């Protein structure tokens, strides 16, 4: 009986000792690879890094299925699947690309300039690139192209060699020009985008004799006729591509300035709205008087605007979504330590309208930074692409 008691007590003591004791060795968890999976780089939960490593990235463009994203890096064009790191080069590294648009057959239309031997700036051309072409040879579609805008299965582009006249043309696929519009447009088309129905285009134009982009025109793509809908007075200029929403045409404009303002602040730009029938531009409702806009993009359904900007000149740059019908601006990110890139083409809606791609980096240090990862895996130290989820509102009754 005594031995049974002793066994029982020892068993209980052993269980307690084993259960209470911590193991001497801590299992080390390797840090997450910076560019894989969901990360929170300061842009909110659910944000996914779409690129990593050094390089000045820009002009993101989602494939029609939303499974790939193309973008420029230091001028050349690459794309990659959204879920892996399998980077694909579309141009040589000495190419200067300004914009890219996907074709339905997985080809890429590229607005840019091939390298030249001289130092003189050369005009841009429209090129077509095929996937899987190891030679990186580009098919020249048209020279002297100044702007491109994509519809469902069509790409419209503006061309012209001088400052006085431009023309529009359209290609469906295969690099063949399917239609050239004969009616000229006065001035040089700087930006171009399509209405939600794809039957009209809005053009931001630099008029003859003017050094700034100050005129908005709409162009009926079926009839081949256009008209001016607004003209900015004074020193204001249009920045980036105007966006045609279901509630009118929105654009970013502000005082023309190539240097810092006299008070040391950056030039300030606002979001304006003009009805498609034309008229004087008015400040966009719901945004706030102090808002400093950088770039805007209309959602695929034409009902929302993604906006990169600041609530006031001293606020950090963040991503917002403006509902033009409800006149409500919603913050998507509330970051304070990431610099979101503010180029006019540096944001893009995913085809389903559920997320927006932006380009951001951490604030660079003035001291040497030491990291424990290879350079091509670093995120915050360089401008990189991030996919930020955006809540979808209830679809209003039509």
């Amino acid at each position: 009986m005594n031995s049974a008691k002793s066994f029982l007590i020892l068993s209980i003591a052993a269980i307690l000792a084993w259960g209470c004791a911590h193991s001497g060795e801590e299992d080390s968890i390797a840090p997450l690879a910076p560019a894989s999976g969901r990360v929170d780089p300061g842009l909110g939960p659910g944000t996914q890094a779409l690129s990593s490593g050094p390089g000045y990235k820009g002009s993101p463009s989602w494939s029609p299925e939303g499974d790939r994203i193309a973008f420029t890096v230091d001028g050349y064009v690459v794309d990659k699947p959204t879920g892996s790191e399998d980077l694909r080069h579309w141009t040589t590294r000495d190419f200067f690309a300004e914009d890219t648009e996907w074709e339905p057959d997985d080809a890429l239309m590229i607005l840019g300039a091939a390298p030249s031997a001289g130092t003189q700036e050369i005009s841009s051309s429209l090129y077509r690139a095929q996937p899987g072409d190891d030679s990186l040879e580009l098919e020249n579609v048209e020279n002297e192209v100044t702007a491109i805008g994509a519809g469902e299965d069509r790409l419209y582009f503006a061309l012209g060699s001088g400052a006085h006249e431009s023309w529009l043309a359209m290609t469906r696929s295969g690099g063949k020009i399917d239609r050239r519009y004969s009616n000229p447009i006065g001035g040089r088309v700087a930006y171009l985008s399509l209405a939600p129905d794809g039957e009209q285009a809005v053009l931001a134009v630099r008029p003859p004799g003017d050094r700034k982009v100050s005129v908005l025109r709409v162009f009926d793509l079926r009839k081949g006729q256009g008209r001016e809908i607004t003209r900015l007075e004074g020193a204001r200029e249009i920045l980036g591509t105007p966006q045609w929403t279901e509630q009118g045409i929105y654009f970013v404009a502000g005082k023309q300035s190539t240097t810092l303002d006299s008070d040391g602040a950056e030039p300030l730009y606002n979001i304006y709205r003009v009805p498609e029938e034309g008229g004087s531009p008015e400040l966009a409702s719901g945004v706030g008087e102090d808002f400093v806009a950088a770039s805007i993009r209309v959602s695929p359904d034409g009902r929302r605007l993604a906006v990169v900007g600041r609530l006031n000149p001293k606020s950090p740059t963040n991503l917002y979504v403006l509902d033009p019908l409800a006149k409500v601006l919603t913050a998507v990110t509330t970051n304070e330590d990431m610099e979101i890139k503010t180029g006019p083409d540096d944001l893009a809606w995913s085809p389903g309208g559920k997320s927006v791609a932006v380009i951001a980096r951490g604030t660079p240090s003035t001291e040497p930074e030491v990291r424990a990862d290879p350079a091509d895996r670093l995120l915050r130290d360089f401008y990189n692409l991030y996919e930020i989820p955006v809540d979808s509102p209830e679809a209003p009754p039509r």
Partner: protein
Amino acid sequence: MRDVVFWLSGAALAFVVTAGAFLLLANLATTPSEKSLNPDRGPVGSGPAIDLQLDRERLASLEPLPDQILDLSVENEDDEPLSDVNVILITSTENTALSDSRYYRQTVEKIPAGGAESVRFEFDLVVPEQPVRRPSAAPPEPSREILEIRANTPEGTSTVRTVILPP
């Protein structure tokens, strides 16, 4: 009386066994320590642990000129001596359109257990000429220089440090 003692003992034993089982399960899924979440990545691969120590003041003194010197320390964190540790320095620029990466290699013949050896690299940190860029393609500030230092052992362990130098 004996029955009461028997049932009380049985209930206590059942409680202790159940509690022990839960404690055991909890220990099997131990939360990692805060140290393991440190962003400083440890050596990759199997084999002895090595580390690289860089002098921040020395890094700050580097200039975009030829004949720069970088001193670093390779530490053997294992309890066995290490031999033939390859240390590679790769210099590049933030502008990836410029294919100007340069590679430098040093071999450390022996590092005692728990000890360290110094390595000196003499290298050129010359900023390549930037091509003429359009405003849309040009970054707003000069490109930064990047130093990537890797230490590899014959056993397959490696560790890496990336240094980003301000312009």
